[in-house]
């Protein structure tokens, strides 16, 4: 963008002195960003943690503000100079603090403020009237600011937009929301430079496009600045004398070793992949914590106050270890962390590099990491990840198109700000990289949806949310509609959560099976009694019976019951919870890491990097069955009990395997094999059937032809689609978000999104929201693309290595152990219902 504001190239003396006083020299990438700012160009800075990324981004605007504030007051420009957007509220607050220091020390007099959901209403109103020089905020707050009539005044004089942790947000729905906001800013403040700050990524060009406004037919990119990389991290894999389990994700065997590793350093972060893993490891560590080392727990379900307390203690260096999930993966610098321990599958090399980067924020010293596999398959993944991390190879993700649900939300916000016409809207939307290729007709359908619901049966003209003016422009129809938009802005739709409160153990006898009369548990109405422990997923609470025990916040609780949309639990002395709460990890195995795992498996030369018990396992597999070559997929068929099993090992991640499982069961059904169920994990898939599958044509079974036909039918009926629909419908504003504390009493007052999905699917299957849902499902969640890639990969002759075995193979053993623990979904629900009914029948007949 040649027309942007130029900046003086030289560092003003006060800045030079400030650097010198700290013994710092300006780094190459910081200077390059200054040079680019001088020519007014937008830039993406790719730098590892600890490279002074933030300072690099803010140095140009600080210098500019310095010059401005030096000048005569009459000539001073008023209004927002720099807008900083972070995916994390806490990061915005932290960065503001870090900027205050140089600003104060150099007496720049720059006004720096944050704006988050926690900012008081009066302050927010004042910020719009009298904006600071630098505002640090989040994508949601930007959307809200843009939905006000004064957005033009507020942002009109904007000179720099800094986007932090861009890699973490760019390819997500929040990234879509931010991109649409940037598209709008491009027309309000066309001369503002954009600066993106990112960790190392596989495809920086995508981020460079994201940063700058796109014009149809003209792809444009921000300039790229790459900082010097620091020392390569040192990764070790846990060496243990213990037996590594075949299956499971608890890692109980490794806890003494992990404890020893924690004791050996001043401070450590123990990363796990799920909340329940965090709970379980935290509990296990404390059970052997004889020295009472300060070890804390941090995950997204804990109350905010609890999390802040842990973060503070960590910054002050008071903790020896924190067990955490991805909540501590991004952002704020937590001070000196000596060691990062990863318990469980790494899933991807980029994720691992991000996590490992949390240790040792000094560039010239290597970060230290320890990988701890929880089962034998994970050993292979850990070894592959270690190699990838040491070589510094990132695993890219597939780009997803911008979400139509997010667009629908943006369109309403756009109508709140001021009337818009279709041409301008289309131009702004396609300026955003994720929407650059969207056709105009789809945009019109989205506007129609935002206005009246977009139904073919035009029933809601009188209840419209956007009103069409006489000149054809659209504007928000009512204050109520604007309020509804502002309450529901954002793209993060959490699984429905329920507040968990602690109460004293109820007087009710256990196991009576009687109704959980929570209001009478303590002999009196519970009311507001009991302190708030945190939030738990609704599905989890729903499966509990009063008396069941479960882990939460590092403590075993006894579930007492529900009252008024809150769950009540009491503390117990029990050590082991009755209800395991492990759900398969959220993160899929990355494509890149999957191929490394396949290569490792295929090459016995490399097995020497594996622990003896694992290479012994693979040797046994080679003797009893086969080891596939890297480009091959192994399929084994064997009988077991009264069933026949088919096991295959694509190493494509659980989601892709689940999709493949759906497809295979359908095909097996057609082949009259009478499939009974399947089980998928990150590495393999096994299907069981009444028929003998050993003589099937495997190339036919795994054919990539007609994949869509079989899956469409399944998708139409799947829970995944329903869940995705719920997310899309919430983001698009069709259903209101639940605001904690404002739930309507009695859940029958709300229309369940599953019911809406079913009715809409039957009566208007082409509705834009269903289109958005299907796109979401096939773009990411279902990993359909990956399954197709797999089927293509194994299409050539010889790529499927089929072994017919008399009994289970060594590789299949872990799978058999997981069956029964994991569910099958769909059909299985019906079977389970039939099962209780059948039991009931026996009692009747007996």
């Amino acid at each position, binding site marked *: 963008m040649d027309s942007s504001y130029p900046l003086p190239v030289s560092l003003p003396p006060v800045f030079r002195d400030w650097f010198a006083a700290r013994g710092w020299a300006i780094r190459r990438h910081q200077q390059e960003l200054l040079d680019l700012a001088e020519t007014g160009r937008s830039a993406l800075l790719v730098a590892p943690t600890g490279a002074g990324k933030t300072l690099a981004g803010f140095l140009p605007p600080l210098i500019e503000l310095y010059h401005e504030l030096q000048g005569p007051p009459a000539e001073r420009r008023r209004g927002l100079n720099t807008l900083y957007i972070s995916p994390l509220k806490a990061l915005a607050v932290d960065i503001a603090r870090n900027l205050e220091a140089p600003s104060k020390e150099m007496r720049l007099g720059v006004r720096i403020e944050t704006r988050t959901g926690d900012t008081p209403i009066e302050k927010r109103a004042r910020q719009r009237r009298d904006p600071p020089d630098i505002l640090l905020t989040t994508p949601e707050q930007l959307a809200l600011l843009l939905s006000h009539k004064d957005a033009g005044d507020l942002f009109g004089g904007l000179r720099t937009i800094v986007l932090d942790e861009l890699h973490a947000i760019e390819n997500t729905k929040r990234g879509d929301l931010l991109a649409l906001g940037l598209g709008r800013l491009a027309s309000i403040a066309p001369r503002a430079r954009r600066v993106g700050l990112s960790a190392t990524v596989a495809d920086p060009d995508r981020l460079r496009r994201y940063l700058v406004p796109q014009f149809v037919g003209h792809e444009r990119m921000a300039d790229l600045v790459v900082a010097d990389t620091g020392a390569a991290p040192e990764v070790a894999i846990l060496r243990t004398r213990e037996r590594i389990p075949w299956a499971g994700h608890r890692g109980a065997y490794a806890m003494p070793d992990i404890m020893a590793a924690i004791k050996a350093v001043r401070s450590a972060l123990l990363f796990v992949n799920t909340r329940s893993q965090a709970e379980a490891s935290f509990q296990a560590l404390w059970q052997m914590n004889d020295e009472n080392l300060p070890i804390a727990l941090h995950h997204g379900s804990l109350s905010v106050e609890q999390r802040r307390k842990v973060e503070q203690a960590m910054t002050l260096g008071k903790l020896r270890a924190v067990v955490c999930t991805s909540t501590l993966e991004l952002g704020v610098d937590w001070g000196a962390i000596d060691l990062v321990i990863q318990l469980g599958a790494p899933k991807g090399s980029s994720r691992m590099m991000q996590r490992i980067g949390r240790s040792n924020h000094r560039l010239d010293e290597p970060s230290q990491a320890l990988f701890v596999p929880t089962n034998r398959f994970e050993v292979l993944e850990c070894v592959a990840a270690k190699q990838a991390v040491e070589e510094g190879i990132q695993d890219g993700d597939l780009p997803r198109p911008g979400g139509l649900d997010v667009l629908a939300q943006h369109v309403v916000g756009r109508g709140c700000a001021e009337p818009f016409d279709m041409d301008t809207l289309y131009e702004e939307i396609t300026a955003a990289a994720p929407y650059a290729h969207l056709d105009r007709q789809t945009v019109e359908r989205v506007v129609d949806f935002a206005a*009246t*619901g977009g*139904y073919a*049966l035009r*029933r*809601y003209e009188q*209840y419209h*949310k956007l009103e069409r003016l006489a000149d054809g422009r659209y504007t928000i129809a*009512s204050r*109520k*509609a604007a309020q*509804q938009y502002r309450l529901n802005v954002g793209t993060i739709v959490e699984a429905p959560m329920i507040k968990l409160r602690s109460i004293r153990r109820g007087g009710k006898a256990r196991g009576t*099976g009687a*109704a*959980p*009369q929570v*209001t009478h548990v303590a002999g009196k109405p519970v009311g507001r009694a009991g302190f708030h422990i945190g939030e738990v997923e609704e*599905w989890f609470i*729903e*499966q509990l*019976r009063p008396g069941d025990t479960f882990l939460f916040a590092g403590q075993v609780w006894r579930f007492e019951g529900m009252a008024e949309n809150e769950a009540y639990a009491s503390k117990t002395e029990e050590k082991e919870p009755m*209800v*395991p709460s492990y759900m398969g990890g959220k993160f899929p195995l990355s494509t890149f890491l999957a191929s490394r795992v396949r290569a490792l498996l295929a090459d016995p030369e490399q097995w020497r990097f594996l622990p003896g018990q694992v290479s012994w396992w693979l040797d046994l597999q080679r003797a009893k069955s086969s080891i596939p070559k890297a480009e091959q997929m192994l399929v084994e068929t064997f009988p077991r009990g009264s069933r026949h099993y088919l096991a295959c090992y694509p190493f494509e991640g659980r989601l892709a395997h689940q999709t493949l499982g759906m497809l295979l069961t359908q095909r097996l059904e057609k082949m009259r094999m009478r499939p009974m169920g399947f089980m998928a994990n990150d590495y393999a898939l096994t299907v069981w059937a009444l028929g003998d599958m050993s003589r099937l044509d495997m190339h036919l079974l795994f054919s990539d032809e007609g994949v869509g036909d079989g899956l469409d039918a399944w998708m139409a009926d799947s829970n995944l689609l329903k869940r995705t629909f719920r997310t899309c419908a919430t983001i698009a504003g*069709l*259903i*209101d978000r639940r605001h904690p504390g404002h739930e309507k009493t*009695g*859940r*029958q*007052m*709300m*229309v*369940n999104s599953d*019911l*809406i999905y*079913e*009715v*809409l699917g*039957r*009566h*208007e299957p082409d*509705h834009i929201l269903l289109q958005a849902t299907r796109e979401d499902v096939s773009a990411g969640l279902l990993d359909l693309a990956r399954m197709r890639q797999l089927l293509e990969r194994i299409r050539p002759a010889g790529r499927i290595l089929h072994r017919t075995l008399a009994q289970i193979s060594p590789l299949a053993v872990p799978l058999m152990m997981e069956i*029964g623990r994991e*569910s099958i979904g769909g059909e299985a*629900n*019906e079977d*389970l*219902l*039939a*099962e*209780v*009914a*059948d*039991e*009931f*029948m026996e*009692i*009747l*007949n007996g």
Partner: protein
Amino acid sequence: MAEAAAAGELATALVNGAGLVFDRSGAAWWPEERLLVVADLHFEKGSSFAARRGVLLPPYDTRETLARLEAACAVYRPKTVIALGDSFHDLGAAGRLGIDELASIRALTGGRDWYWIEGNHDPKPPENLGGWCVAMLACGPLTFRHLPQQGDQPGEVAGHLHPAARVTVRGRGLRRRCFVTDGSRLILPSFGAYTGGLDVRDPAFAGLLAPRFHAWMIGRDRVYPVASGKLS
């Protein structure tokens, strides 16, 4: 009878001596009287959200509910149909019905005896759609009304509560709409397309059923009887 249910045939139960069939749609069928009962149709619930709250739900709930009702009538060919109240989601619902929906309702009420029982959502069901509006109705051993009455009410067939039940099998919770009966009283699931369920463990059900009752849970292909002790 019960064996037939398990074998995937009709789900049949005795309510105060009357043999009733529980249909997957949520309707109950009384073969002896050729009588079909449905509860809580909630016509135009979707558009009421649009009118009152500006939430533009798909406006197809009424035609979906009607399609299910038409299908049930085509299967059982009832002489009499009883809609157990809350057939219309609010007093303005009838006024918001589309032409097609009006025609469907008139066709349904035209061919048989049709009773609209008054509910709390529709204390005055519209009179121009065919059928008779009544507060309650007694027929042999059964009494049909919207709100279940407190105390012992042998033969009461009611709606209003939208019963749903939950079972936990091998660590998994399953929740379904259900008929619920202790052999004396029957409460029907809601029939309307946008109607949710209330757990039979909710205090709202307290005192209405004997300690031991059965929830007839509506599965995809069948209606499954589950004893109260097995519910979670």
